[in-house]
């Protein structure tokens, strides 16, 4: 499965990273070249409107350094609940399939463990919901 996807067996395993290195070189090279080329051959005309901050075509209002509503942070914490969920889901998912194949009788426990984990996180979510975290008025 996972091994068949990455089955390109190379003599030196370090060579397996060669495409990644190549990609990084291309990406950095592309960006640097574009910037350099536009500096070199682009026309240089400045003006008042051109020097304003670009915000989706809007005229900027005020400063970004202001207080945000504390609810943003609470929502960010709720996001963390789901985020942590995914971090644990991923390694679990990679071992679950081989586990089912190797010892099907014991894989139920693995599933139950994950259900308990998700259940606890859902509980936290329901709690936050009940406490009115998503109420915005």
């Amino acid at each position, binding site marked *: 499965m996972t091994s068949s996807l990455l089955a390109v067996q190379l003599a030196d395993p370090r060579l397996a990273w060669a495409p990644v290195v190549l990609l990084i070189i291309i990406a950095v090279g592309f960006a640097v070249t574009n910037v350099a080329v536009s500096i070199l051959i682009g026309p240089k005309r400045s003006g008042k409107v051109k020097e304003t901050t670009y915000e989706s075509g809007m005229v900027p209002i005020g400063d970004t350094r202001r207080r945000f509503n504390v609810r943003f942070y609470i929502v960010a914490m709720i996001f963390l609940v789901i985020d942590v969920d995914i971090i644990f889901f991923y390694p679990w998912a990679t071992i679950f399939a081989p586990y089912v194949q190797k010892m099907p009788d014991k894989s139920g426990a693995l599933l139950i463990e994950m259900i308990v984990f998700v259940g*606890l996180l859902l*509980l936290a979510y329901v709690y936050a*919901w*009940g*406490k009115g975290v998503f109420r915005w008025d």
Partner: protein
Amino acid sequence: MNLFEVMWPELIVIGTACVLFLLGVLPMPGARRASAALALISLLGTFVLLVYYLMFRWPGDTLHDSSNALRIWYFAHYIKILATGIGVMFVLMSWPTNKDATGNSALDFTQDGGEFFGLMLLSIAGVMLVASANDMILLFLGIELAAIPTYVMVSISRPLPVAQEAGVKYFFLGAMAAAVMLFGFSYLYGTTGTTNLTEIARQFSDRRTAVGSINALPLSTWQMLAVIMLICGFAFKLAAVPLHFYAGDVYQGAATPVTALLSFVPKASGLVALIKILYVIGGGMWIIPAPIGKLLWILAVLTMSVGNVLGLLQNNVKRTLAYSSIAHSGYLLTGIAVIASPQTGFVQQDALQAVLFYLAAYGIMNAGAFGVLMMLPSRHPKAATSAETFDDIAGQGRNHVVLGLAMAVCCFSLIGLPLTVGFFGKLFLIRVQLRGEDYWLVIITVINAAISAAYYLRIVASMFLRATSEAYPHAPAPVGVERTAPAPASFPLVLAVGLSVFGTLILGIIPPLTETVFTTAQTASSLEPTSIPNATQASALAR
């Protein structure tokens, strides 16, 4: 082995905590009144089940799960019985009645009751997890599960700036200590390649055998660093001396029932973790490297002495009790220092027995002292404030003789006077110090007990010998509350103080009962049935 069989006490307590949190978001406020009862039932039920299991159903072998991350032998079982038993007293003390009279807690229990008791249960479950953990990760999670709910409880317990300050201080310092501890765990993992404590103990024991000398240091420099960082983290939980600075402010800032919880639950988690790590470092045979033994000796002596001397200087009773709890950590650490001493024979086992007995004694007698404080009114009509200063309690012993006597019993026990459980606690500790031939430690402990008498007796003397202070004239009592009158006694609180005083006295007066607890502590002083499983057993366990 069935996972449920291994961790049902934790599952019951954590499950109830989850139910309590759900109760906290129900739209009916009346439902939250049941939260204290639910918490009490779950803790009491777990306590009874654990005792029953120990007496009638004990399998005669360790209970452990398939990956050997949880491992339960008498030691873990003893700590769990202790945590749930003392936990019952804490629930009774924070029972949501009587909140306007003495303000033992300003929580609106129809609003926050579910959360408060849910957090309390989680904290107690943390200690239970620490007791049964046999894996670094689980050990760390258990310690933090015991600590993190207390940060929240400190902050929500009183609507006063001082409680917020205490909560924030406790949180940041606690996070720092947790980080140092985690750093230590990471080095231990990095140098041994496993998180399993049995496996690590076996590696240390093997290395000692390979060197051939029992005195050879089996720890590399990095491992030594790791152990010192771990001791640092545990010392914070214990409020041992270089890391005790938070204790005074936090204990004073929190509401009194929360202070009572703080002086036992996080402490127990740190102590148990310290014992476990020492056992592992000693290769399962308590052969602790000499530098670590010296470090713990210094820590114990400093903690006792500084705690007691600073206790003398306070004029707030809760703060005095905070420093007294630091001093008691010091007494517990003297036992740990004997465990870590290079003595051979069964001194280590006896020392652990004495420490475990002292922990139980401290839990029982300490709760009563805070309980009496909660029943006395404060002269300041501040929210959630029971008696705090020496002026508050002045003369109250003569006004309410029973309360005064209860406080006297608890204080005498905390000093270690005979006819109380505290006497036997100190007796057993000093006996193992003598058996460990550590005469300086004996002398310092006895001197400290004498110093501590000064401030405990000051509490008792204030209650009986001083005249009642006038209430502040510029601070009128809230409507409907008679400040100078005794608070209408809330039955659960009276029950908690009664249990504490009764336990303190009966364990001090009736020797067979003391001996029963002491023998239980003796069985609990073995962390494993044999020294440690050998390689084949260990690999069998790992699979």
